[in-house]
């Protein structure tokens, strides 16, 4: 490697304008000024680690999903044998799997839409309130954003506790509402709605803070001009603010989709480590197949399907990044 370094030593980097004058004495003799190998040397440790802990497992995920891999293969009593696409057909023919897919999509879509709409409304609201209110709201938002997910989940578990939870107690004070002892997690849809609330509560601050930063970029003159031309508040938002914010909104939405499809600890901890069938989403379902049923092959197949489902969204995200020139 060092031989390669010295041979390429004097090649000037292609994009360095203007090159430092050659008359400048180099302090140390054979010092490279930035040969073609330098960036790769700098990248090497990072790529090496990523190849080990990300690349290899990704490949393994794919091969596992085509293998029969259970308890005995895990302990090395039997070699893993290839079973072709059996894992996939097994998963795809399972009626429960399709229910899980549908539930995951509804859940993630609900989370993303609520997060984006509430986030946008709060960001717009923050433009209109007095300074001290803005500070208060920002403190609350940053505190909820910074809360570790596990802490937030246990707090929500406590808020929604059937017997002593504050929510039931407060709601029951309303006339005609009797919720003391109501178990929010007795039914799947209701329980998932609570979990959705938890996810949205944790995700909104990021959206608000990013959109607020974006809103400061919207030129006041443009809004003024639209207003003079007779646009109402909605018109200004729809035809001036929204188009300018569009790149940020696309990015936030794709990120939210990716994050909300990957929700795991919220469901897992909320259901004490054993989500009932009604609570299973793709991530917990894959976990369950692998570590509870001990069918690592099918578990991997489900995880792989999840990743493939997300690929489209990731592509949109990457295109947006390239478009706005973040990746130049």
């Amino acid at each position, binding site marked *: 490697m060092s031989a390669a370094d010295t041979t390429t030593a004097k090649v000037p*980097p292609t994009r360095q304008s203007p090159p430092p004058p050659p008359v400048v004495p*180099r302090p140390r003799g054979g010092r490279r*000024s*930035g040969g073609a190998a*330098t*960036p790769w040397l*700098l*990248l090497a*440790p*990072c790529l090496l680690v*990523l190849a080990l*802990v990300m690349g*290899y*497992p*990704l490949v393994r995920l794919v091969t*596992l999903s085509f293998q029969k891999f259970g308890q005995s293969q*895990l302990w090395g009593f039997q070699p893993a044998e290839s079973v072709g696409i059996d894992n996939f057909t097994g998963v795809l023919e399972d009626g429960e799997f399709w229910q899980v897919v549908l539930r995951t999509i509804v859940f993630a879509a609900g989370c993303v839409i609520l997060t984006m709409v509430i986030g946008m409304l709060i960001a*717009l*609201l923050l433009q*209109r*309130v007095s300074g001290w209110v803005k500070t*208060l709201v920002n403190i*609350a938002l*940053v*505190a909820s954003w*910074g*809360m570790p997910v*596990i*802490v*937030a989940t*246990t*707090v*929500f578990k*406590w*808020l929604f506790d059937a*017997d*002593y939870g*504050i929510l039931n*107690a407060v709601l029951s004070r309303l006339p005609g509402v009797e919720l*003391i002892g109501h178990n929010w997690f007795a039914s799947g849809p209701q329980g998932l709605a609570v979990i959705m609330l938890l996810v949205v*509560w944790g995700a909104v601050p*990021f959206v608000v*803070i*990013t959109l607020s930063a974006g809103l400061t970029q919207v030129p006041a003159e443009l809004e003024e001009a639209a*207003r003079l031309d007779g646009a*109402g*508040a*909605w018109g200004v938002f729809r035809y001036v603010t929204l188009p300018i914010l569009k790149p940020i909104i696309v990015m936030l939405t794709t*990120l939210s989709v990716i*994050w909300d499809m990957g929700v795991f600890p919220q469901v897992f*901890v909320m259901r004490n480590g054993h989500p009932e069938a009604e609570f299973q989403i793709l*991530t917990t379902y*894959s976990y369950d197949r692998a570590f509870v049923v001990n069918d*690592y092959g099918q578990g991997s197949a489900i*995880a792989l399907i999840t*990743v493939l489902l*997300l690929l489209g969204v*990731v592509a949109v*995200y990457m295109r947006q990044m390239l478009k706005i020139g*973040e990746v130049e």
Partner: protein
Amino acid sequence: MSAVASEASRAGSRSGRRRSKSGWNLLGLLVFAVAGFPVYWMLNTAFKPAKDAIDPDPSVLPTGLTLDNFSRALHIADFWGPVGRSLLVSLAVVAIGVVVGMLAALAISRFAFRGRKVVIVGILAVQMVPLVAMIIPVFLLLNDLNQYDKLSGLIITYLTFILPFTVWTLRGFIVNIPKELEEAAMVDGCSRTGAFVRVVFPLLAPGMVATSVYAFIQAWNEYLYALMLLSQKNQTATVWLSNFSTKHGTEYAPMMAGATMMALPIVALFLLVQRKMAAGLTAGAVKG
């Protein structure tokens, strides 16, 4: 409601504007109350006497101030062990992540080379793979490497999500430092390394601190891998909290005390860096 606002602003009358402003403020306060309530209720429960916590008709305001729940939380299960392990893992991950990430960030922000774009897109794409999907092969990998139930195994694993994040964020900070500064130093006789150490590094330090703190928070908060890759006796702080229950069932007041102890340092750290990080976050540098 926004129509009301525009009406008011068009009318331009001072009192009308003030009235609409106070309406917005009221709404803002409502947002503050709703967003802040879970945090408030955690603190409220943590500091109230345990018997008030299981009052079927709880008072929303604080009822008393006691530290009993904290001492109980510390005694129910070993607290400092998991916290120490979490601290060790997070610090190691940050130290390795920032050094390795820094080198890579330099490569992609200061050098033009063939394959640069591929590397950038690759690092960004790696970020987007949900961690949960990788747990099965990672578990088997560590099992094969004899790293199951070892903190070193967890540290390596955490680098998967810390590294792409640090590379991308540090890159953002580096590209904001004008190249001319380095070039000037090199004209004055610095080597490329010297120019970096003397000129770029001092300017980069605040960004590096922010990135490290954020990476620390992420490692500290991780749950799934900590749960799966370590046994009960080696558990970390997040797993400690999620397992919080006694033989009498879940005691929520001490649990909230435990939650407070875990969250307060993190939220404080978060407050320190969030302003600096918000810009980097827009660039998709963070895993939720």
